[in-house]
């Protein structure tokens, strides 16, 4: 994308997300562009009369006009400014939505990539700390309009400064009529603006852009170590291990470039000098402007009363010119940030390419088979799964066991198409699952992950995963998982908010209760496959036994897959597969596997030895 296309696309995207934003910004910019010149114009009218004939009736008229027009103008500015601010505030959640929608549709594989999160963080931080990205686009748009219009007004007001001729009898001052003056003035203005722009850019380059990563690392460290204690989960360890020492050590170093020998030193020296100079040069410009204007007035080109008009107009023009040049710099500087945004938004989608629809079968005859499946995580060379062959028997319970890191959870991720294998294929009723429509395929899977997440939203919505829900079914699944009693104790029943993020009336469920709700959610989905990854890790023995005793009923005619470190749970299952370092090493019933000398017996004995009486 070249710069023009990039900006066009960004403009269209922001316009689509925030309708009305650009209109309000443009209107407000028009008004703000004109406003300073209106003031200059009307006050100069009064001054001209004052320095001239001083007719009271004319003065009165002009004063009334000035006060009235300026009053109306400032009223309009207030209204337009509020209109603009309304849209500018609204921009933030609406811009969020662009990213939220993208993040939601990203392949899971990309979600697990650090590079995606770094990119997202970079986009967010460069907007937060320096206003780059879409936000800068809005600023560019606004300033371009305001300054262009300002320059037009200034030209209109100051044209006479240059065009009014020194009368020919005033021979000594004839040189003031030389057309070189307006050209000098414009060159001065532009070069001044360019020069101070360069100075500013130089300092920001030296201390901000180049060090962006250090600046944001310092900011992150500042937040992390300064406010670590806010995390209630940390308060025990912080005391027992006296982590304050460690925190203090890192905190002291967290200032990074903000530390006394970094930025402050730079700004105390060179940086501050350069920036001071970039502004101070305007003082010299003002002096030259006064000199030229006064000389021309003295020479008789115009009246003394007009001095203020021209000085006012050209001074304002100077601001507008440097504003416009600044805009030009911003366009260039913002380009990389817009590119970053589109790098994220254009992340391709691989999962959605299939188009076959899955059959809706009431008999749940969905037959899934892993054929020679090999998988490694992106940018690694270790096969997490190595030529795995496996057939899920319809309507049976399958247990997957193995050590940490043996590939159990990965197998589930492939089954749910969170990842696609590099070699081999997974077939649903004989057809590669990639060929199915992704959303259709996902409908077949219900999973309770080890790190399942319930959202801080009402209970029933959590179970339905939707804004609407079938009350009867929600109650039914809650009953199935044994949440009935607890439901009765909840004051707002199904409408009870989970967690206290959004109000004290929310309910914090215990680990066991939350797990039941997560299982209920999986049941509500009513998919032919149900997969439970470590469903009882945080439960005490009684709660664990309760869940197990219900599982048989709960699972009913679904195909069920369990992953558990508690090998005791295998005894519920019709079949067990054992994974070891990515290989499927054993397969069979508990009785069969237990009789063979192998990984399964090793794992079993490791646990069972403590339970033999």
């Amino acid at each position: 994308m070249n710069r023009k296309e990039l900006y066009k696309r960004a403009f269209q995207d922001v316009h689509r997300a925030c309708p009305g934003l650009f209109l309000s910004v443009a209107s407000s910019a028009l008004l703000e562009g004109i406003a300073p010149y209106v003031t200059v114009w009307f006050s100069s009218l009064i001054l001209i009369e004052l320095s001239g004939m001083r007719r009271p009736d004319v003065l009165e008229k002009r004063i009334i006009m000035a006060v009235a027009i300026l009053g109306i103008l400032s009223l309009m500015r207030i209204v337009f400014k509020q209109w603009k601010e309304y849209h500018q505030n609204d921009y933030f959640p609406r811009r969020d939505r662009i990213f939220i929608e993208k993040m939601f549709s990203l392949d899971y594989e990309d979600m697990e990539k650090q590079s995606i999160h770094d990119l997202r963080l970079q986009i967010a931080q460069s907007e937060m700390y320096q206003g780059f990205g879409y936000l800068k686009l809005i600023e560019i748009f606004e300033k371009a309009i305001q300054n262009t219009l300002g320059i037009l007004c200034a030209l209109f007001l100051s044209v006479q400064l240059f065009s009014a001729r020194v009368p020919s009898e005033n021979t000594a001052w004839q040189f003031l009529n030389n057309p070189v003056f307006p050209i000098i003035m414009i060159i001065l203005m532009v070069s001044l603006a360019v020069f101070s722009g360069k100075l500013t850019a130089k300092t920001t380059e030296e201390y901000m852009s180049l060090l962006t990563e250090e600046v944001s690392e310092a900011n992150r460290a500042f937040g992390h170590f300064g406010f670590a204690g806010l995390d209630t989960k940390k308060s025990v360890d912080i005391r027992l291990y006296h982590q304050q020492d460690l925190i203090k050590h890192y905190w002291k170093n967290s200032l990074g470039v903000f530390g006394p020998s970094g930025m402050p030193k730079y700004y105390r020296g060179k940086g501050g000098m350069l920036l001071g100079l970039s502004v101070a040069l305007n003082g010299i410009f003002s002096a030259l402007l006064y000199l030229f204007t006064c000389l021309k007035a003295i020479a008789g080109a115009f009246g003394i009363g007009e001095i203020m008009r021209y000085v006012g107009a050209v001074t304002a023009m100077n601001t507008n010119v440097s504003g416009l040049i600044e805009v030009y710099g911003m366009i260039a500087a913002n380009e990389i940030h817009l590119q970053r945004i589109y790098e994220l938004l254009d992340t391709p989608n691989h999962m959605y390419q299939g188009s076959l629809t899955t059959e809706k079968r009431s008999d749940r005859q969905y037959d899934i088979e892993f054929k020679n499946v090999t998988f490694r995580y992106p940018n690694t060379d270790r096969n997490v799964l190595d030529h795995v062959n496996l057939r899920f028997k319809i309507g049976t319970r399958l247990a997957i066991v193995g050590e940490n890191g043996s590939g159990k959870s990965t197998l589930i991720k492939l089954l749910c198409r969170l990842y696609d294998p590099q070699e081999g294929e997974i077939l649903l009723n004989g057809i590669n699952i990639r060929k199915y429509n992704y959303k259709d395929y996902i409908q077949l899977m219900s999973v309770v992950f080890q790190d399942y997440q319930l959202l801080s939203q009402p209970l029933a919505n959590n179970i339905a995963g939707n804004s609407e829900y079938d009350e009867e079914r929600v109650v039914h699944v809650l009953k199935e998982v044994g949440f009935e009693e607890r439901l009765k104790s909840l004051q707002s029943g199904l409408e009870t908010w989970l967690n206290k993020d959004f109000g004290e009336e929310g309910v914090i469920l215990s680990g066991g209760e939350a797990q039941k709700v997560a299982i209920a959610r999986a049941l509500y989905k009513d998919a032919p496959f149900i997969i439970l990854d470590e469903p009882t890790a945080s439960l005490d023995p009684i709660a664990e036994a309760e869940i197990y005793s219900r599982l048989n009923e709960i699972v009913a005619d679904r195909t069920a897959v369990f992953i558990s470190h508690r090998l005791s749970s295998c005894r519920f299952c019709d079949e067990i597969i054992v994974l070891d370092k990515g290989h499927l090493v054993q397969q069979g019933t508990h009785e069969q596997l237990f009789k063979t000398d192998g990984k399964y017996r090793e794992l079993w004995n490791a646990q069972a030895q403590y339970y033999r009486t």
Partner: protein
Amino acid sequence: MNKRYTSLKNTGWMLKEAWQLQRILFFVIPISAFTGVILNCVQLYIAPRIIRCAETGAPLEKLIETILIYGGLLFVMLFLQKYIAENEGFPRMYFRESMISKFAEKTNETSYINTLKPDFLQMREKVASLLSSNQQPCQHFWTTLTQLFMNLIGFAVYLLILSSLDYRMILLSSFTCVIGFLANLFTDAWEFKRRREEEKIDNRFGYIRRNSEAIAAAKDIRIFSLQKWLLNIHESLLKTYDSFLYKKGKERCLGGLVETVCVVLRNSIAYWYLIHLTLQNQLSTAQFILYFQAFTALTAWISGILEQFSILHREAQELTALREYLDYEEPYLFEDGADPGHGLQCGFVFDHVSFRYPGSDKDIIHDFSLTIQPGENLAVVGLNGAGKTTLIKLMCGLLDPDEGTVFMNGTDIRSLNRRKYYELFSAVFQDFSILDVTIAETISQKADQYDLERVRQCAALAGVSHDIEQIPGQYDAHIGREVYQDGVILSGGQMQKLMLARALYKNGSVLLLDEPTAALDPLAESSIYQSYHEMSAGKTSVFISHRLASTRFCDRILFLKDGKILEEGTHEELMRRKGAYADLFDVQSRYYQEGKEY
């Protein structure tokens, strides 16, 4: 309102703190304020002085001289103002940084019980937000003070400049300033009242955003197709927010209207009076310009004083939370407590101990008595909510009993220096605190001067050295990605083993383990059990577990129920008794028994 912390007293306190922490503020603030006023004066005089030269037909040299003087002054003052503006933020930032240090120290050192009190937590949140950015009171206070100071000086100087004018004019214009200020106050009050509302909407937006980005929620969102639901919530939040913004805009327009009326009134008065004066006294155009600009500026100073003063008042009042927090009462003894000594064999006695959590209406532990011999290995089992974790928190002095006493080697824990006392314990709790520091620093809890050899030994004993060696950077790798982008993310099992290694490195006299194997696979779990004897050698230890298998290694098992000891004894004794413990053991072991049908 608490009389101890009025906004006047808080302002005094801030000044006192600044005197201690950033004395340079007392230099920077007046310099900045005076520079602002002087620049203003130069800008005020430049036009009238130059025009007077032109108007009165003064000699050319005089005109050029005037222009040079004022141009030069403008150059210098513009330079100074920009230079100061670029630099004055640093001392303010350092002040906030020092305050965050104080906040962190209080937060991290305060008596543990405080962190469970709702009012303390609420205050803590509030203080954290006061410190959260340069726009928040703790730092912005100094900006406000500078502004106020500048406006006061400016007002005084301009009053002098305008002293020849009719004082009634000044009173009248001051009056319009007050009216405009009051109108703004109303708008501010409206917004202040609705700030909670806005924060609430903001929180919810943030929640959706975080969930869209979090890896934790990504699987569930995809499998259960939660996208539509979350976007619906976002959509309805947008509607609420839009109408909130609309109301806010309307309110501000109203405030703006009143202010405009005041400005129009003020301008009319100024023009009318000054023109009158000019015509009557034959003032020059230059004088008219001077007076008119000075008059406008004077009203700006007045508005500035009112506005900055009200901001200062509000900010100082908000700082009450910070002072209350730093002054929050410490029920535990720290430096004033007795030294418990170190490297001891510790025995504990619980004497009729009761405890309930703040805000709860029933005791979690009630009338509880227990003696733990020095060097004893104790196991505590029981269902969730039985009070197991509370028991060890009472033991290591994180909590103090409401009734009864906990003695360590015969001394009431409450009389000891709590910080020193904590040094006696090596503990792994279920909630742990991992900072974004290196693995070696995590295990040793020391920033430097750790013994790498010992770090390795402890990692090996905890069974995590193999995992660490797989990581690029090994022991020097940072944990987590909150700060360092090249940090490593550890799995739950690895984290748990790492916490165990940390406890071993500390080598305290007492080993406390609360469910240390919940996230481990059977082989890793078993190997921890195997090395338990080695880990607890020569120490008093308490092992909490759901897995009754682990209890067999202990000298004595306590079975807790509802904060009381239901049964106690060795595994064999308890099994023989065929009570609750035996039942629980049956539930767990049933599936491991060969030949038994479930």
